[in-house]
């Protein structure tokens, strides 16, 4: 009886352990099954490098280059804004701030993480968008820049909290040693502590970027969703995620459009997979 119980519990834990992998594989297979069907209508280069996205025309134009570039541009913009601020914030919290300010900052950042993305999108729409329009004298404020700024807000909590953990786990002796050798506080931070925590900070950045690429609601509300190839960050763009979210409801199950949206999903999956594997490789390289 006891053996049976032991056996059952063991198997149950095994199942739970395998479940996550199992579901990922299932999701990926489903994506592949539905998405690859689009290549009956278009060739892969036409799909990936086609410049126009008119999915419901006859015949449909299913080129996702503007969407890929739109996603990359928003992500890049968000990364450029959130990484310096996020890492600097983490350094301040972990190394510089007095205890009281530290507590306030940390809970503030947790609060930022708790704001739902649709609310951020809405706030961006009524505040940031008119603001960007008037500052840059643009015909419309619904631009990649607006999306990038709002997404930077979303990436920041992830970057700050993980980077801060990484900085915190650097052994105190490193810092003490550096200070004992006559380094100033800033020298100790940027010559000793930051390099020692770099793998953790890199992971923080990657996770932040991963969050940005997958974000949908806020970008759909404030980037304008025009499927043009962007030439500057002050233009409207349409991202991969917003395309899926906006069009999935319409796509008739089994149509080219439906398959194309799944194929867009595969592209997104591959991009975030590359980001994650990149982060992983970087981490392991550091460890050796």
């Amino acid at each position, binding site marked *: 009886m006891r053996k049976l119980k032991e056996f059952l519990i063991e198997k149950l834990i095994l*199942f739970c352990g395998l479940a996550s992998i199992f579901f990922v594989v299932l999701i990926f297979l489903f994506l592949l099954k539905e998405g690859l069907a689009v290549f009956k209508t278009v060739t892969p280069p036409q799909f990936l490098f086609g410049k*126009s*996205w*008119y*999915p*419901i*025309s006859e015949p449909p134009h299913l080129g996702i280059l*503007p969407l890929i570039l739109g996603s990359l541009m928003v992500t890049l913009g968000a990364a450029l804004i959130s990484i310096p601020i996020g890492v600097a914030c983490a350094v301040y919290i972990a190394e510089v701030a007095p205890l009281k300010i530290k507590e306030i900052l940390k809970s503030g950042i947790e609060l930022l993480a708790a704001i739902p993305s649709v609310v951020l999108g809405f706030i961006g*729409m009524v505040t940031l968008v*008119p603001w960007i*329009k008037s500052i840059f004298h643009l*015909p*419309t404020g*619904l631009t990649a820049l607006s999306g990038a700024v709002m997404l930077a807000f979303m990436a920041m909590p992830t970057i700050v909290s993980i980077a801060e953990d990484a900085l915190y786990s650097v052994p105190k002796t490193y810092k003490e040693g550096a200070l004992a050798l006559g380094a100033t506080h800033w020298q100790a931070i940027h010559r000793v502590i930051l390099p020692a925590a770099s793998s953790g900070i890199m992971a923080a950045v990657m996770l932040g970027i991963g969050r940005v690429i997958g974000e949908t609601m806020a970008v*759909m*509300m404030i980037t*304008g*969703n*025009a*499927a*043009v190839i962007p030439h500057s960050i002050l233009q*409207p763009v*349409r991202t991969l995620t917003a395309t899926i979210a*906006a*069009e999935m*409801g*319409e*796509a*008739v*199950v*089994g*149509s080219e459009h439906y398959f194309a949206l799944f194929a867009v999903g595969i592209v997104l999956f591959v991009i975030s997979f590359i980001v994650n594997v990149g982060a992983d490789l970087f981490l392991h390289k550091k460890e050796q």
Partner: protein
Amino acid sequence: MKSLILSLFFLACFSTQSSAAVNKSVRIKGSDTMVNLAQSWAEKYMEIKPEVFLAVTGGGSGTGFSSLISGTCEIAMSSREIKEKEIALAEKRGIHPCEIKVALDGLAVVVNPQNPVGKLTMEQLAGIFTGAIRNWKELGGDDEKIVLLSREVNSGTHVYFKEHVLRRGNPQGTEEFAPSALLLSSSQAIADEIAQNQGAIGYYGMGYVCAKQKAVLVARDAKSPYEAPTIDNVISGRYPISRPLFFYLNGSPQGMLKDFIDYCLSADGQEIVVKTDFVPYKR
């Protein structure tokens, strides 16, 4: 283990479906344009027949059709006719779409009230939305870039505007919205952007126009008179951008569904059409 999860999943699906049938509930889904109208109909109808529950949701005409085809709604609302392709897909799944015209709608072309341009021909509209005309200067307005606002592709309004304004009703037409057109997810989003952007132009059902936007007068061609999107002009057909609104069902309406649709088409029902700023199909 796998089969256990699958069976649990199916059990969950079936149990929700059967309970819905017991409560006499009808799911109505589709065109965002028609949500307010159908909601008003549903509320009044449920006052008369409290035992019936009508759930109205939006999402766009295409969403309505795909739900009808996949069996997740009983009535699909649509602001465009069903496509051949959609009929074929429906038949494949044993669904026979039946079309019922329930009301008319005029599409208003709207600009910011500050914009001096107040009337346009259909040809100019096609030029604007395909990207051939890019500056308000060319239309006698200020020297300002035109910002195009359109609904997302899942919207019947988007499809109707493309087919009847951009392509001038020519089924072989290949005109498309300029890629620079901003695709916004709701009529309200277009209305908000128009209200704060002097260079913007957009379109939506005439029920959405308020003081913060200006509806442009539209002429069929350069020789015709410019007409405003009003109820009288839509009924008489003088206003060029108007369209029928439909309900689609699986097979001809029967029982409870027939009763509800009869109510929508009755004098009371058509009065609600007028109240929600649409145009009655019958007078």
